[in-house]
C-alpha cells in the first residue's frame, strides 16, 4: 500500500531509534504526551516503547472521542433507541461503551432496540431515506476530523428536506482539551505534545501555536504511521534540548498551517460552540464542544425528542482524571486489571482500545510481569 508501507519500514525505524538514542540527553527525563488515540494505538501496536530510550516516556492523552464521551451521552442514545423506537445509527466504536442500567448500545440492540452500525454519515442518510416512516438518529461523536462528515450530512439532509433525520451532537474540540490538561494548578509535568494527525489535516497547525507560546510546550504534529510518530518524538527531543517551544509539522504530506478551509467553512456553517460540555475524565470544559446552529434546529435530536442530558458520575475508585493528565499511570489505579478490564470497563480510559488503560492492558501489561 503506497504511502503506508514505506512509513512502516523497519530499517528506517532503526535509524530514527539510533538518532533518538544519540540525541536524548541521558541526564534528563522527557515526558511526552501523544494526544491522539490513533497515535496511542500505533505506539502499542508496533511496540514503539521498545524503540525509545528509557528516559523518553510517552503519556497517553485523552484524544479518543469514545473515551471522553460521558455515560450520560450514551444514555441519551440508548433511551432514544429503546423508548422512542428510533433507528439509532452509530459508528461501531461506541456500541460497547457501558452506560446506565447495565446497558450499552449493543445490549440495547440485543433487547430489541434498532441500533445500526455504520461506516459513514452517508449510510445514515440512506437509512433515513429508506425508512420514511421511522425516525433516524445519528450519534455524532468525534474530534475535528469527524465533524466535517457530519456537517456534510446535515447540509444534505436540509437540501433534501429530510424530515426523519436528526443527530445527537457530541462533537468535541482538540485545543480545548489540550488547555484543560495544561491549565491545572501548579502545572503538569508534560514536556511536549505529539499533535494529532488527522485533526490537524482539518484544523491546520495554527491552533496549536498558543500552546507553544503561552505554556512554553513544544508541539510536533505527527502522521499516523509508526515512523511518523518516532520522527515526531525525535523532533520534540531536539526542541526540548535546544530550549525551544514551537509548533512543528512532521506530517507535511497532509497538514498545512491553515488546514482544510473548505471543511472548516462547512463546519462553521452548521455548528456553533456550546458554552460548556462535560468530558468524561476531564470534567466540565468551557467552549470545548459543538451543537447545531438554530437554522438546523430541525436536525437536533436533543430538541426534537425529550431526551435531556443527565450527568452520571464515574466510579469513585476510577483514576481516569489523573491518568488522562499524565499524572498517574494505568497500573497505579486500584481497579486497573481487576475490576476494570476491557471486557468490563469502569472508566473512560479502558473503554476504547486506544484509551491509556486499554492500550496498556492489551499491549503493555506483560512488561510489568517481566515474562
Amino acid at each position, binding site marked *: *500500500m503506497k504511502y503506508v508501507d514505506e512509513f512502516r519500514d523497519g530499517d528506517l525505524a532503526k535509524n530514527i531509534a*539510533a538518532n533518538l538514542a544519540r540525541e536524548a540527553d541521558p541526564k534528563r527525563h522527557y515526558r511526552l504526551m501523544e494526544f491522539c488515540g490513533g497515535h496511542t494505538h500505533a505506539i502499542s501496536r508496533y511496540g514503539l516503547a521498545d524503540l525509545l530510550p528509557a528516559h523518553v516516556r510517552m503519556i497517553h492523552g485523552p484524544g479518543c472521542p469514545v473515551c471522553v464521551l460521558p455515560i450520560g451521552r450514551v444514555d441519551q442514545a440508548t433511551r432514544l433507541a429503546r423508548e422512542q423506537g428510533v433507528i439509532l445509527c452509530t459508528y461501531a466504536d461506541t456500541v460497547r461503551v457501558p452506560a446506565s442500567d447495565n446497558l450499552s448500545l449493543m445490549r440495547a440492540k440485543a433487547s430489541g432496540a434498532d441500533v445500526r452500525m455504520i461506516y459513514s454519515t452517508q449510510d445514515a442518510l440512506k437509512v433515513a431515506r429508506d425508512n420514511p416512516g421511522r425516525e433516524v438518529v445519528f450519534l455524532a461523536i468525534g*474530534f475535528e476530523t469527524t465533524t466535517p462528515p457530519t456537517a456534510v450530512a446535515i447540509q444534505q439532509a436540509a437540501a433534501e428536506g429530510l424530515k426523519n433525520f436528526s443527530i445527537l451532537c457530541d462533537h468535541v474540540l482538540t485545543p480545548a482539551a489540550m488547555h484543560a490538561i495544561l491549565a491545572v494548578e501548579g502545572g503538569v509535568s508534560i514536556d511536549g505534545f505529539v499533535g494529532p494527525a488527522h485533526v490537524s*489535516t*482539518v484544523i491546520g497547525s495554527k491552533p496549536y501555536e498558543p500552546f507553544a507560546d503561552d505554556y512554553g510546550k513544544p508541539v510536533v504534529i505527527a502522521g*499516523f504511521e509508526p515512523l511518523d510518530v518516532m520522527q515526531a518524538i525525535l523532533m520534540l527531543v531536539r526542541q526540548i534540548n535546544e530550549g525551544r517551544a514551537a509548533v512543528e509539522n512532521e506530517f507535511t504530506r497532509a497538514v498545512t498551517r491553515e488546514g482544510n478551509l473548505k471543511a472548516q467553512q*462547512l463546519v462553521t456553517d452548521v455548528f456553533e460552540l456550546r458554552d460548556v460540555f462535560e468530558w468524561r475524565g476531564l470534567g466540565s470544559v468551557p467552549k470545548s464542544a459543538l451543537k447545531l446552529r438554530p437554522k438546523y434546529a430541525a436536525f437536533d435530536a436533543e430538541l426534537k425528542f425529550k431526551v435531556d442530558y443527565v450527568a452520571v458520575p464515574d466510579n469513585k475508585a476510577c483514576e481516569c482524571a489523573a491518568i488522562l493528565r499524565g499524572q498517574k499511570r494505568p497500573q497505579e489505579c486500584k481497579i486497573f486489571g481487576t475490576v476494570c478490564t476491557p471486557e468490563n470497563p469502569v472508566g473512560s480510559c479502558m473503554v476504547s482500545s486506544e484509551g491509556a488503560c486499554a492500550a496498556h492492558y492489551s499491549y503493555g501489561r506483560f512488561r510489568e510481569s517481566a515474562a
Partner: protein
Amino acid sequence: MCLAIPARIEELTTPGNAIVNLGGVRKEISLALINDAAVGDYVIVHVGYALQKLDEEEALRTLEMFAEMGQIDELRSELGAQ
C-alpha cells in the same frame, strides 16, 4: 487521531463521489470536503470522506528525513558515549 488511510482516486463517479483504491480494495467515498480532486491523486480517507489531498513531494521529503543521520553531539561521540 482518527483512523484514516491514504488511497488513490481511481474513478470519479456521481458528482462529489469517487472510487478509491487502497492495495486492491476499492470503495466509493465522498469528495465533498475537498476541491479539485483528479484521478491519480492520493487522498486521506476517513469515515467515507476524503479529508485532504496527499502531497506526494512532501511524502518523499518526509521519507528522506527518516533516513537522515541525526545530529551528533560531537563531545559525546568523542567520549564514546552511546
